[in-house]
């Protein structure tokens, strides 16, 4: 009941998920490679014109992260479903939002690491010039993945327990994420282009608003989702 106990649960879940993730996916190497592969595919699809590629860079980066992220979200609950661990998890007393919070943390760490690799590859592949306002770019990236992971972890709690998880998760998640993605892409694009119109900060504020609203909503709603 106390904050201390809750934190114990949150960190136990996050740690368990990260260990599982590390052991079951042979490190981040494969995820890194997958991110890069996606970027290469986007390069094929929308290249080879250098300017067109540079215009598409922000979009390609975010889509690569999104598609790879969906894999992680579903996976994070599937581990619970194998051999009935979810029933066991629900048997522990205490507040249910801690389960969400734990998974949120592990997914955030996972997706951040993936992002770092994908961005590094993207800079090379799409010939991105790092803008002088790179701290802002970093903030954009972080806020973007917070939004992505908040909603992804939440919807995966439902989708992964249905018969159609592979289809249902993107179906529920992608439309809800459109504002986050749009804001993240637009802000990134503006910053990469030198932010001549000073529009980046408006997008970043929008992003922040989204993150906060959905994080709070998800923490409250999670109980209803996991309980039944």
């Amino acid at each position, binding site marked *: 009941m106390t904050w201390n*106990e809750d934190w114990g649960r949150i960190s136990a879940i996050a740690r*368990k998920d990260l260990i599982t993730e590390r052991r079951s996916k042979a490190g981040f190497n494969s995820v890194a490679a997958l991110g890069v592969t996606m970027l290469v595919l986007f390069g094929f699809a929308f290249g080879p014109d250098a300017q067109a590629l540079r215009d598409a860079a922000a979009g390609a980066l975010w889509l690569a992260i999104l598609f790879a992220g969906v894999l992680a979200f579903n996976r994070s609950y599937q581990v619970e479903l194998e051999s*009935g661990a979810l029933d066991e998890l629900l*048997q522990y007393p205490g507040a249910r939002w801690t389960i969400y919070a734990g998974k949120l943390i592990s997914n955030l760490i996972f997706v951040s690491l993936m992002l770092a690799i994908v961005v590094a590859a993207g800079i090379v592949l799409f010939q991105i010039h790092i803008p002088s306002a790179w701290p802002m770019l970093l903030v954009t990236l972080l806020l973007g993945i917070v939004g992505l992971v908040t909603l992804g972890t939440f919807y995966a709690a439902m989708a992964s327990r249905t018969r159609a998880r592979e289809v249902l998760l993107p179906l529920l998640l992608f439309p809800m994420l459109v504002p986050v993605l749009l804001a993240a892409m637009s802000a990134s694009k503006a910053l990469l282009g030198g932010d001549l119109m000073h529009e980046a900060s408006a997008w970043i504020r929008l992003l922040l608003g989204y993150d906060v609203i959905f994080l709070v909503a998800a923490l409250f709603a999670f109980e209803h989702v996991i309980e039944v």
Partner: protein
Amino acid sequence: MDLQSDLPIDAIRVARRFGSKWVLRGVSLRVHSGEVVGLLGANGSGKSTMLRILATLLRPNAGTASIYGHDVVSAADEVRRTVGILAHAPGLYDDLTARENLRFAAEMSGLPTTDLGSLLGEVGLSEVADERVRGFSSGMQRRLAVARLMLRRPQLLLLDEPYSNLDSDGIVLMNSLISRTARGGGASLIVLHELAPASGILDRTVTIVDGRIAKPEKPASYRVPVSAAGAIS
């Protein structure tokens, strides 16, 4: 439920359906402190469903059930503190080691994580304590699940065919957990098909027939296995 009874299990006309099929049609069951009760019934008669309802994993469609006076629907959190279930599936994480699985259970229950080693020794898994559960045989997984139960020391044990996959040492282990719980004032409800391994610790049995507990006076239409009939007579 104005009058709170403090029985380990007090289920009143619990009913549950899946789709339009009524599996439980009004199960009333009382288990007293110190009792070990066997729950029998044919395949598909709803025994696992009943256990899951008592463990707050499934909600009844009608009727009420309370565990030590706490309603399984409205006071689920209190119920979870007192109940331990051993289901068909062991509920372990395949990519964690035996020790890590136990540590996780301890952390989630707010218990100290020392002494896990001796617990693993008790269930005979010391040698594989740091191996991943993925490669465990079915009996080893079940032993680990038993260790997790022993760690949490629930007052009420809900055991779904606890002896399957266990060898004779494992059966002894299981029985000692059950009788230790009973001596400590707890209780157990055990789903069984074969009474032999539980002979000597069962106080009584009840049988689910047609979604209800069969009347004890008329012999249950469910036949007790031949080989086991002697064991409890």
